[in-house]
């Protein structure tokens, strides 16, 4: 099919305009440019039993599923490609995205006689409505056989992919479909589900609008076409296909007639590159880590819907299109540290909508951690970097939340309940899976109190700040007493003991209910990690269920406690349990299965972003700490740009100008600085003016506020 010139003006302008609207005007100033070329394909191994990727867009209410196999799906309809030459196996590769993180999907089908390379991208299309997208797929067949032959593909319309898939919330319930061809269009139940290349060939007796075919169940029905060409060795031929996110009622071709593959791909590249370019940039010598950072950002931006004029953080592009405070709060934090303040602030405002009249913030019944999580998320959005106006805006909600926490604690004391001074029981029907007084609820409420103090300070309400600090201190004491009384070897899921490990994993980070060096935190981490060994992750429930983000908080504690090797092991484990597009399923069996809980998961992306950022720069404590988790190899050239901190937006570089010298260069911030010397070496002398070694072990170098550079000499650690 002749491809229109890249960047033909009308489609590009139309796409750009819609992208502008969806991005809340943040792309203002962009003008049509020639379509950017792809950055190449990041061909990564697939660690899951099924290779699945999401192609979505912020503001859309569904996402396209690519895979498993050579299939794309909207959730209610799928296109499947098979190799044409008889006997050509044509097994599909994993799905890959591009090297710069742009979610343009690529996969191949390689057989003995031909190779097919697929490229698929999704973008908004005005004609499909303000939450609709169009997916464009180009299949390029290259003939490999020495003898010329008939190359090509067979295309089948199915109801669903053959492997794991999710039926969207708004898909019709019909399991039987009337279907026919109408020009280029594949029509099901009177609506266009795909537009095929004009040069496809329909078989004799193919269904028409006068003689319908029928499909039942998930598999292929009667809509089948071939794309074929006579090719010699090395010759190629491409065909293109369009899939609307929602079927539409139109005549042949209809409103997608003018949509070109090149236009859709160009729009996807422009939008995602722009999004990534405005976020914090992390570049380390480890290209897999760099890609994981960008993939996580893409997932976080994809997992945004709009409601009442605000962005809304949802749990995943597929099965978790809903809001949980426990997940949304993590997303707010990740977006804030990743320099996406518009989404972080909007998401925080959305979380404020969960407040009930008594002051509690609740997204799911019985999940009492929600109040603390929402308050904590408010502080993340308002302090990274400090935004007093946002703090003032969120403060009334935060005040009510604090009041609810204080009242709850007061009531458990006045009623002389067994766990007085803490929150009452919760019944989350998730996480701990028990009705009990949950340790995680109290940890999050403690974090909420501290967050209100931070917000109030930023907003200039000193009285509320003082009150919040007092509540935090008193509550913290009650928490400590309860922990002593629980007589548990580490930290139990509930004060009574029973339950699955869940909220207790957040006791050290981010809630800081316990100091990071508390031996019970190390014991908890040891217990959870041992069960999941040697994965580097932790289990949720059965030993075969590896959880991709439950262990992230414990990895953060390891950072703060000076055990970066544990953090690095978790990171390695996570990357080894990620998809070929670096998305993470929430729970993975040791064999790589994820059931119907498809990747990617927004919270896994969020905790990954937070962890990587803190490994390079952390403002968790009262100083700016650099290199807490950076291995020595990262000092050979790591760059973090446009990174918000509580002390301002920072850019920094880790360098190794000589084998025995490490150097940090950063934008000066008004905070004392501590540099963590990586494991394997120890600092022997500070080389920069104002820098000094701290302690006798050569593990830390310190400098005052406003420092631009810290250089220090290192020597191998004894015994290494």
């Amino acid at each position, binding site marked *: 099919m002749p491809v229109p010139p890249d960047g033909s003006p009308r489609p590009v302008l139309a796409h750009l305009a819609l992208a502008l609207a969806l991005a809340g005007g943040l792309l203002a100033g962009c003008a049509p440019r020639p379509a950017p070329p792809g950055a190449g394909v990041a061909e990564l191994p697939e660690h899951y039993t099924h290779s699945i990727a999401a192609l979505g867009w912020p503001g859309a209410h569904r996402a396209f599923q690519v895979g498993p196999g050579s299939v794309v799906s909207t959730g209610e309809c799928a296109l499947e490609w098979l190799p044409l030459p008889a006997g050509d196996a044509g097994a599909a590769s994993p799905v890959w995205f591009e090297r710069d993180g742009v979610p343009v999907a690529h996969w191949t089908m390689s057989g003995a006689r031909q190779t097919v390379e697929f490229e698929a991208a999704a973008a908004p299309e005005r004609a499909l409505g303000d939450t609709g997208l169009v997916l464009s797929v180009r299949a390029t067949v290259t003939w490999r056989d020495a003898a010329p032959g008939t190359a090509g593909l067979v295309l089948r319309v199915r109801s669903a992919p053959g492997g794991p898939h999710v039926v969207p919330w708004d898909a019709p319930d019909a399991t039987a479909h009337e279907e026919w061809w109408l020009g280029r269009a594949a029509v099901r139940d009177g609506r266009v589900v795909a537009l095929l290349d004009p040069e496809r060939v329909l078989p004799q007796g193919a269904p028409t609008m006068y003689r319908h075919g029928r499909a039942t169940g998930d598999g292929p029905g009667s809509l089948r076409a071939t794309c074929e060409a006579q090719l010699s060795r090395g010759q190629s031929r491409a065909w293109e296909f369009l899939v609307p996110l929602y079927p539409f*009622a139109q005549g042949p071709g209809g409103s997608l007639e003018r949509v070109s593959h090149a236009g859709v791909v160009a729009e996807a590249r422009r939008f995602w590159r722009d999004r990534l370019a405005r976020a914090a940039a992390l570049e380390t010598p480890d290209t897999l880590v760099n890609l994981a950072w960008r993939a996580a950002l893409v997932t976080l931006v994809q997992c945004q819907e709009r409601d009442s004029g605000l962005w809304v953080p949802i749990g995943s592009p597929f099965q978790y299109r809903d809001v949980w405070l426990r997940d949304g709060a993590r997303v707010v934090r990740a977006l804030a540290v990743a320099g996406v303040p518009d989404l972080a602030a909007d998401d925080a405002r959305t979380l404020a909508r969960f407040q009930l009249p008594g002051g509690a913030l609740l997204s799911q019944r019985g999940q009492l951690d929600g109040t603390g999580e929402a308050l904590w998320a408010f502080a993340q959005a308002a302090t990274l970097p400090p935004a007093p106006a946002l703090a003032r805006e969120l403060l009334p909600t935060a005040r009510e939340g604090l009041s609810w926490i204080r009242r709850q604690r007061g009531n458990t004391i006045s009623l002389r309940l067994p766990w007085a001074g803490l929150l009452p029981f919760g019944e989350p029907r998730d996480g701990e899976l028990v009705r009990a007084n949950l340790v995680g609820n109290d940890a999050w409420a403690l974090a909420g109190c501290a967050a209100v103090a931070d917000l109030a300070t930023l907003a200039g309400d000193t009285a509320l700040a003082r009150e919040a600090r007092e509540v935090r201190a008193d509550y913290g004491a009650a928490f400590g007493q309860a922990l002593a009384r629980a007589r548990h070897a580490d930290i139990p899921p509930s004060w009574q003991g029973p339950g699955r490990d869940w909220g207790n994993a957040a006791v050290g980070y981010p809630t800081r209910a316990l100091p990071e060096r508390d031996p019970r935190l190390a014991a908890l981490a040891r217990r959870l990690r041992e069960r999941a060994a040697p994965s580097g992750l932790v289990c949720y429930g059965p030993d075969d269920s590896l959880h991709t983000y439950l262990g992230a908080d414990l990895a953060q504690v390891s950072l703060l406690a000076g055990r970066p090797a544990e953090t690095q092991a978790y990171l390695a484990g996570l990357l080894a349990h990620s998809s070929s597009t670096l998305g993470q399923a929430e729970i993975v069996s040791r064999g790589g299965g994820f059931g119907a809980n498809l990747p990617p998961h927004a919270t896994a992306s969020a905790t990954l972003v937070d962890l990587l950022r803190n490994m390079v720069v952390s403002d968790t404590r009262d100083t700016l700490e650099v290199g807490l988790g950076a291995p020595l190899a990262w000092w050979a050239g790591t760059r973090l740009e446009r990174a918000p901190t509580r002390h301002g937006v920072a850019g920094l570089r880790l360098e190794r100008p000589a084998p025995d010298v490490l150097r940090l260069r950063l934008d000066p911030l008004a905070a004392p600085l501590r540099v963590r010397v990586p494991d394997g070496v120890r600092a022997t002398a500070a080389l920069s003016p104002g820098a000094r070694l701290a302690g006798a072990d050569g593990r830390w170098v310190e400098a005052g506020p406003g420092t631009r550079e810290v250089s220090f000499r290192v020597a191998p650690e004894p015994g290494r």
Partner: protein
Amino acid sequence: MKRRHKDDRKRRPARRPRRLPARVIVVALVLVAVAAAAWLALRLRSPRPTRDGHDALTPAAMAESTRAAYAVKDWAAALHWARHLAGTDPSNPSLGLGLGLAWHNLAWGGAGYGRERTATRTSLDRVEMERRALALMDTASAHARDETEWVRSSMWLGQTYENVGLPLDALAIYARVRERQPRYGPVESRMTWVLNSLRDPLGTTAAPDSVLR
């Protein structure tokens, strides 16, 4: 979901105009005239329907429809009827309470994030419904015309807090009821249940009779 479809008529290739035979035009005009006359006759004969179609119903009929909807757990229909019923007498606290309950039931009955609950797809929808429910119940309690109405509104307010998983908030409401109506028995057993749960949440079958005072 708002979907807009482009009118693509302008993009269709222009066809060479063809002249229609006079006989076809005459037949078409006759058909249009007959259709218009039939439409006019039907319109004149039947009364113009009201905007929502329920104005002709009595409150009793609406209440019966609400009950019928509850019986089959059709929460959306129950809300629909409760809304219309409350609209017949907006200052009636009982009807306001009924509407609050209908909102709560819709939020509650449509639980889970699966496809089966498109009416309350996200927790944002549900929490908004619960907020409305609580506000309506609170208002019904504040405007109660007698003690019976006040007790009923307050008890449902407490029950709703219990249902969303806030036992201490519920207990505070029940305590108000007991303080004002110490001889109202159900509040005592409800408080006992909540208190027992608070003291021993793992004992899922806490007996309502084991009063802990």
